[in-house]
């Protein structure tokens, strides 16, 4: 196989004194949608935050397209091609929907145009002048995803995009992710919603207590259901 787009090796991370990640390995290839599974508190969010550089106390190797991200200051990591949707979505209340959308600087060519985005998310177009946090939870999630599509990032880190959303909205988000996949976008997705994850993922990683304990492809999923039921408590 070719060199992975995102290569993580032996990643460790800390919150203050508390050691949370103990050597996580992970690879995402170009065009893949990879889902990170694991119970609450397993370290999924921490893994994304460490890759993004939002959590600074970390060790190990993180490479994007061969470029080492470890030593970069936070504001340069996005320019390596990472787009981040945090678990809490991070919609700014002091900004309108449109301003939220336009906030992240373009980091590379080839991002979605504003028209494409408003076409993909018609609700956002309608409410472009509302205050960002006046949107419903589902719309805020759409906005959080839409916001990084403009930037030209070539890999999206999505942290539990379906959390707390109604089934119809979850379906909408599924559609969006499939549309992104169809455009060749690479996605690293954290999910607790297993039924959602299995519909979109090409490959899975399973985390427990800050360790990566398993990885398998969508085709191998059936054979893993028993052990998954146990680790995830499905």
């Amino acid at each position, binding site marked *: 196989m070719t060199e992975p787009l995102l290569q993580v090796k032996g990643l460790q991370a800390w919150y203050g004194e508390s050691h949370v990640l103990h050597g996580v390995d992970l690879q995402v290839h170009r065009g893949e949608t990879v889902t990170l599974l694991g119970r609450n508190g397993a370290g999924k969010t921490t893994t994304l935050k460490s890759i993004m550089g939002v959590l600074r106390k970390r060790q190990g190797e993180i490479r994007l397209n061969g470029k080492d991200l470890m030593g970069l200051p936070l504001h340069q990591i*996005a320019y390596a091609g990472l787009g981040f949707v945090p678990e809490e979505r991070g919609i*700014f209340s002091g*900004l309108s929907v449109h*301003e939220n959308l336009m906030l992240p600087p373009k980091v590379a060519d080839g991002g979605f145009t504003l028209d494409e985005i408003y076409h993909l998310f018609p609700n956002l177009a309608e409410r472009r002048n509302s205050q960002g946090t006046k949107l419903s939870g589902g719309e805020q999630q759409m906005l959080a995803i839409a916001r990084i599509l403009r930037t030209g990032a070539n890999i999206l880190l999505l942290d539990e995009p379906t959390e707390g959303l109604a089934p119809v909205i979850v379906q909408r988000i599924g559609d969006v992710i499939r549309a992104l996949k169809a455009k060749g976008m690479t996605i690293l997705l954290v999910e607790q919603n297993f039924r959602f994850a299995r519909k979109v993922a090409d490959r899975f990683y399973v985390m427990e207590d800050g360790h990566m304990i398993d990885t398998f492809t969508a085709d191998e999923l059936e054979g893993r259901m028993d052990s998954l039921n146990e680790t995830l408590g499905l």
Partner: protein
Amino acid sequence: MVTVFGISLPALMGQLLIGLINGSFYAMLSLGLAVIFGMLRVINFAHGAQYMLGAFFAWFLLRYAGIGFWPALVLAPLGVALVGVVIEKVLLSRIYNLDHLYGLLLTFGLALVIEGLFRHWYGTSGQPYSIPSTFQGAFNLGFMILPKYRAFVIVASVIVCLTTWLLIEKTKFGAYLRAATENPTLVQAFGVNVPRLLTLTYAIGAGLAGLAGVLAAPVYQVSPLMGQNIVIIVFAVVVIGGMGSIMGAVVTGYVLGLVEGLTKVFYPEASSTVIFVIMVLVLLVRPAGLFGKE
């Protein structure tokens, strides 16, 4: 002669005008404080010292380089902003992840140093700075005499405040500022150089104080202590208005200046304390301040 509550109309208007002038400075200074606080979470006690620096820089330019008011109106604030850049990079940037009280202590110390140095060099008596020739003289409005320069100060302060407001509310730069006020880490994760944004914000705040200082130079005297007296009043203004809103800080500044002017007419003994009394009343009724959200 026309009188209002036994006060002659020109005397009343005169005091209101003085109040409005003071209010213009309160507005510009509390605006700068609020901008800095919003982004850096630092209460900039050195704001008064930076206001004083603005006035002194203008005076230096005139005295040592023969550079007059108009160029000074641009150059002196730029100079103060540059001082702000140094202060932010060398000192403030080291304390952002500490308790916010340290920011107040640090800038308090800084104010003592800056004002102490100028006092050491120039004593406590003020240096005159003459009114630019364009604005010599006065308008006779019939019911009052309005000195041209004072009218200019009021208009200029309104323009300055509006421009700053537009910068923050309507531009991309302002969107970065507003977003970073809420979640600096995420904004930086998007690729915005937030440390530089912080430096720039502090420089803008300091520059605003410097600009107010230049405008003040012909009205008051250029004195090392001019900022010391005003900074605590501006703190009270900011507590009254609530620091959540830029517009709130500005409007509160003008209104309190006017109130102070009115007090001078009707109860002069209280004119130096009236703003503090209002602060107490506001705190009792609305602890978050008039425009604060909490």
